[in-house]
């Protein structure tokens, strides 16, 4: 056991897998000699060699395309896209190829590729360093989509992703790389050491894909969220003194609807929250699935708190970001309805 922040946990996951499985390779822009712009691959090339931790040209399409070819030849590439905002030049290889090669070939070819990419805002990154495109990938049949909210899950889920024979897009909420964030930018930044999930085993372990996590039990309302907003939601509910059940979806596809359903049937009220823009965002699917599964138990309409339907504006980050204030307003709307 060691105290790790999310960067160290993610680094450890790759380190462990590079050690355990000689078919694992790590690739991406600046990931090798330098160790990554967020340091997630720090030291890996030194430990595992240039042939297994590879600096790639600035070509997201080329990174995904070659990763697919490597996977077809028996490797397990873990490819980093430096920011989720820059994943789009690789979109065709992800959607048209990576996601469907197993299917179209009747599983005679498979592509166990993991794509890691930092996402989300709250770091003054403006419109091209803050995006949360997870909903787009969750819509693509054949991709698994994951977003952890703490170091323990990050390492365990990333190892599961690397070991999965299905392609996985693994989003890393960069705002909480170094510490949990309750949505108040004026507070001194916290470290993971205080957080129970900041305790991470040094060795191999997994957190299974496809299982949501009830991070806080409650009976007045269910808050379904993931990534950074898990921490904001907990803080908001606490500040309001509402006994909320907070669920961290963790794996967006496949979705653990059973855990969500059981909770909403218990509380009768539900708020869905994420950082991504609202219209057609992942939250829409959560609402649609939950209203169908729990309709007869719902005492109020399901509300969504999400990024506004605009690009992520540099100057207005804290009016754009789903802060405690906005979560609280959403919780109130749900609690006071009906």
């Amino acid at each position, binding site marked *: 056991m060691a105290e790790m922040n999310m960067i160290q946990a993610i680094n450890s996951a790759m380190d462990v897998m590079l050690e355990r499985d000689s078919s694992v390779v790590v690739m991406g822009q600046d990931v090798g000699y330098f160790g990554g712009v967020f340091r997630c691959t720090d030291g890996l090339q030194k430990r595992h060699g240039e042939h297994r931790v590879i600096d790639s040209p600035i070509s997201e399409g080329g990174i995904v395309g070659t990763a697919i*070819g490597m996977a077809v030849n028996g490797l397990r590439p873990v490819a980093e896209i430096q920011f989720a905002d820059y994943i789009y030049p690789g979109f065709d290889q992800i959607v*048209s190829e990576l996601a469907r090669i197993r299917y179209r070939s009747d599983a005679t070819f498979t592509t166990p590729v993991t794509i890691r990419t930092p996402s989300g805002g709250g770091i003054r990154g403006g419109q091209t360093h803050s995006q949360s495109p997870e909903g787009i990938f969750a819509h693509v049949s054949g991709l698994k989509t994951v977003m952890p909210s703490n170091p323990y899950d990050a390492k365990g889920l990333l190892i599961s992703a690397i070991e999965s024979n299905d392609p996985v897009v693994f989003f890393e909420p960069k705002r909480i790389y170094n510490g949990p964030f309750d949505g108040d930018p004026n507070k001194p930044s916290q470290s993971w050491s205080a957080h129970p999930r900041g305790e991470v085993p040094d060795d191999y372990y997994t957190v299974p894909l496809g299982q949501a996590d009830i991070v806080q039990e409650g009976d007045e309302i269910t808050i379904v969220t993931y990534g950074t907003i898990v921490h904001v939601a907990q803080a908001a509910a606490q500040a309001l003194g509402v006994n909320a059940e907070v669920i961290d979806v963790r794996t967006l596809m496949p979705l653990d609807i059973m855990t969500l359903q059981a909770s909403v049937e218990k509380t009768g009220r539900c708020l869905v929250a994420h950082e991504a823009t609202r219209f057609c965002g992942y939250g829409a699917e959560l609402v649609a699935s939950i209203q169908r599964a729990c309709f007869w138990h719902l005492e109020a309409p399901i509300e969504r708190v999400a990024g506004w339907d605009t690009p992520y504006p540099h100057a207005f980050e804290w009016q754009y970001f789903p802060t405690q204030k906005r979560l609280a307003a959403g919780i109130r709307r749900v609690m006071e309805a009906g």
Partner: protein
Amino acid sequence: RPATNVDFQETEQLAFELIRVLDDDFEPRGPWAPDLDKDQLLESLKLMTLVRAYDDRMYRMQRQGKISFYMQCLGEEATSIGPGMALRDGDMIFPHYRQQALYLMRGTGLLNMMCHCLSNTRDFCRGRQMPVFYQHAEGNMFTISGNLCTQYPQAVGWAMAAAIKGSDDIAASWIGDGSTAEADFHHALTFAAVYQAPVILNVVNNQWAISTFQAVAGGERRTFAARGHGYGIPGLRVDGNDLLACYATTAWAAERARNGGGPTLIEFVTYRGGAHSTSDDPSRYRPRDEWSAFPLGDPLKRLTGHLERLGHWSKDQQSELEAEMKQHVADTWKEACSHGTMTEGPFLDPHEMFEDVFEEMPRHLDEQQAEMMELEEQEWPK
């Protein structure tokens, strides 16, 4: 023909010439003339004749509504067969959709290929792909994609992995002239050059991309073979209707790659003898007699001409062979249809549609599968 280990600089001229072996009298000439023996030549002729018979039959079957779609490789056969002969079984092939000859060479089997085009119970894609999107893992033939050029960087990645694993197998990929405009062409050349991947990147310049002449892809300003020069990748411009030249140039590039010399880009100059696909009507955009005027002729005629000159073959033998292949294709088609057609059973079980989206079927697909099967039971209109 430079040594296969020369520096890139010494190869530059080869992107602007037209590398040929067979002259207009079907005589092999020049430094590229390979030593293929009689059996190998006859083997390739047999295959070329078979592919034509296959294409001809399948094209007509589509016209009769027996299959939904088809694409011929008429006139381009040598650009698959020549290279195929020069590669090892362990080399991985990432084809475009006009390499049916390579699937036959790698043991995919005529019957299996027909069953795929029929999407029937024996379809190796289990009904999930349109006709001609073949695959054959055992034969190291990759699954064909409908999206142009995506296989190019994949081939480079496969080759990078071979190098990482210390194997001397190489990868080869094919695309068309029009596809060179896609992003993945640049991705492939960049990564191949940077990592010196053991890969052969082929461009089959058949002059047309559906209705647009290769000039719309920039082929008239500069040969496609020269596209690699900006990256320091050797380019060979080859007479694609000359089976011996196709073989010899691939052998050169394969030896170069296998010995750590890195990638080669090969442009095969040929002509798309047929329509783009069964959905296309070329009379709307090109002269009907264009092919007959094409200076590089017909690869089949040139190969038979060569064999006749060697005294290995005669017109009669060729007619016999064609009749034999035609029969073989017809018999195989009959057998293929016995495994189901679009209209007559046996049919694939639709529940298979939900498999292989993921390794294990997640709950939501399980439910959707059950819902679909239940609907299958119901009558409509009730």
